């Protein structure tokens, strides 16, 4: 083919290639489409919904629309003027008739304790719309709280339609009457500690899993296939047992009249039963047990890929066994260690049932509170905000891990 005709055909050739590729791409797309849709509806959708709920704030606006409008131009320095009082009185009358007072009262009560009483009491005692010009007087007479600036800033700040209130609360922060972000009152500030506790327990469980899992994975990779399969069944056994059953088994083992305490007592090692459960110890033991396979499997697969020839080569080059292990074997298991640790850590972050069953009050992790707010107090905003913070922290961790792994990608040098 001459140079000229080659140049002439270049473009059509590219286009033809694209066309041929397109058919293949469409076929591939069709194959993943069902899963994609499934994930969209069951995973991406709910997560987006959760993130939205963490900032959604339209309850007060729906119940007290006139008040919110009236407060829009308020500078917040002094008490609002008569129009705001009149708007509130009108809103309360309408909300009372519609029976929606409780919705706004619940939301306002999150921001200011006791607001529920103020709002419902005022609505109850407001028999009729006050005469024009007397709204302020009437409301203050019913409840002196309407003379407080903070009462009004609370309503204004809850006016939505979006708010940082829940996200701030999840980090133990509040916006004060002047709009500045400050630390929450000590009796309200619990989430940072709970996050710290969640991360600490997860970190401890990850470390335990690594320490216990590494030798097992090594043995699995080193054994001949027959025996390693048997061992693998033992490793996988926890997977095939219900989480609840496994956790309850630990209660049976660890309780003060349980198998462990009885045995230790019988052996004369202890006089008083040890407190092994309903504390941090019990949580770590049970979670480590449940999560161990997630550590062992990635470790095993990374170790299986390491040819025994590497260790032989290291020995023949003069490296004593420990040196060979530290400098040749261990670095090659790092991707497995990273993957296993990340997996266990992220799974541990979301643990709920195990700490709830075998932990004490001081061992509850963030998921417990998320569950509490969703199922018991129906504070979806705060539950979503806590979830969003947890999600963000997890994503950040995964990104950091991704960067670390990218830095030292191991390429297979062996051709087997």
């Amino acid at each position: 083919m001459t140079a000229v005709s080659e140049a002439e055909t270049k473009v059509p050739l590219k286009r033809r290639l694209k066309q041929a590729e397109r058919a293949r791409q469409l076929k591939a797309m069709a194959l993943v489409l069902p899963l994609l849709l499934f994930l969209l509806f069951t995973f991406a959708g709910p997560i987006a919904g959760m993130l939205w709920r963490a900032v959604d704030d339209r309850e007060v606006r729906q119940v007290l629309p006139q008040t919110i409008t009236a407060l829009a131009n308020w500078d917040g320095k002094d008490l609002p003027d008569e129009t705001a009082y009149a708007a509130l009185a009108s809103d309360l009358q309408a909300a009372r008739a519609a029976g929606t007072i409780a919705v706004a009262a619940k939301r306002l009560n999150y921001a200011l304790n006791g607001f529920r009483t103020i709002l419902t009491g005022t609505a109850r005692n407001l028999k009729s719309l006050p005469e024009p010009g007397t709204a302020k007087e009437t409301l203050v007479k019913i409840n002196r709280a309407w003379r407080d600036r903070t009462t009004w800033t609370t309503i204004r700040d809850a006016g939505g339609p979006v708010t940082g209130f829940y996200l701030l609360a999840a980090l133990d922060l509040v916006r004060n009457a002047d709009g500045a972000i400050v630390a929450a009152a000590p009796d309200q500030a619990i989430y940072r500690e709970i996050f710290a506790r969640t991360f600490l327990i997860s970190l401890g469980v990850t470390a335990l899993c690594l320490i216990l899992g590494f030798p097992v994975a090594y043995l699995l990779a080193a054994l001949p296939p027959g025996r390693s399969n048997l061992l693998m069944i033992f490793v996988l056994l926890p997977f095939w047992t219900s989480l609840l059953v496994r956790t309850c088994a630990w209660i049976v083992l660890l309780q003060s009249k349980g198998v462990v305490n009885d045995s230790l007592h019988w052996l004369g090692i202890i006089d008083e039963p040890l407190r092994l459960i309903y504390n941090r110890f019990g949580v770590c033991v049970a979670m480590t047990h449940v999560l161990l396979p997630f550590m062992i499997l990635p470790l095993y697969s990374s170790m299986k890929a390491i040819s025994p020839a590497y260790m032989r080569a290291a020995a023949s080059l003069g490296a004593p066994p420990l040196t060979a292990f530290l400098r040749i074997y261990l670095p090659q298991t790092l991707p497995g260690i990273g993957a296993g640790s990340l997996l266990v850590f992220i799974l541990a972050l979301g643990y709920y049932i195990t700490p709830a069953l075998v932990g004490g009050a001081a061992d509850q992790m963030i998921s417990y509170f998320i569950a509490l707010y969703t199922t018991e107090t129906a504070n979806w905003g705060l539950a979503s905000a806590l979830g969003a913070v947890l999600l963000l922290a997890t994503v950040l961790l995964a990104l950091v891990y991704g960067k670390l792994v990218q830095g030292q990608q191991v390429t297979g040098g062996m051709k087997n």
Partner: protein
Amino acid sequence: MEAGMVTPAPALVRFSGIQKTYDGEHLVVKNLDLDIRKGEFVTLLGPSGSGKTTTLMMLAGFEVPTQGEIYLADRPIKNMPPHRRDIGMVFQNYALFPHLTIEENVAFPLSVRKTGKAETQERVKAALRMIKMETLAQRRPGQLSGGQQQRVALARALVFNPQLVLMDEPLGALDKRLREQMQLEIKQLHETMGITIVYVTHDQSEALTMSDRIAVFNDGVVQQIDRPDALYERPVNSFVANFVGENNVLSGTVETVDKDYCRVALAAGGTVMARAVNIAGAGAATSLSVRPERIAIAPDGASSDGPNRLPAKVQSTIYLGDHALAVLEVSGNAEFMVKLQPGAHDSLKHGESVFITFRPEDCLALDSV
């Protein structure tokens, strides 16, 4: 000893009465006695399962002999761990550490010996220069071709000046052309550096190309240990004759023995004169060995005065560029090969009757197979 050979150097490695069994029933290596001299290139050649790799692994320290002792520079090393033996080793799959660069791989044996930084740098540089790969020092093994990886493995095994270098089928994973090139490079390294090399292969041409001496293994026993030419010209038994080089086998019975020669009656009729190498005596069964290039083809009916003249039938001819092969049927052997000059095969036709002749000294009477 061969004429013209210098006084043999003292043995660097001595296998003494070595036996090895893995299952307690079958001996993989049976009673091995083998001396390897300093500076020698010795190849352990044999089919798979013959015990050659096990022998190498015992020398490297990865397998422990069941019985006997191995001496390295006159010191028993049976119970010495591999990392203290000061033996460099090159593996079939290179075994370059994938997480280290080429430079770090080559520096590894020096760094575990706590060699100084400046000296390490210098020696690594020299080693990389030796294999002409200074420019690739910062690459990782996965980014190199098979031949390049094997060169690095070679440099890594040599950089700490071990007293002995072992190679376990190091070229097995390379293609033919690269393999032949690497053979010459390794041979050159051996000659210029004066190192002692023990090399394991199942490829007889590789062994012939590179070795000072070849130990032919079969069934856990060293069949013959000799220089490549001696191995080819004077195999001690049928196994060696068949394993090293091309070989034609004719079976027969010894009629008479006269000093170095014997008369053998072929199973399919006719007699030939052969050198008596490995026969029990008159009346014993024997396998005759004749190399394809030592045979001449005479047209049917042509007269010949040699003692070894057998009728043959042409099966086919093969043209191979630098030479040609005639496949004949001789005395019941339908794959009897005769090496010809290229072009000489044109006159041979399928089914044609011819005669083959060969000298008695080119026909060896060996043990019956």
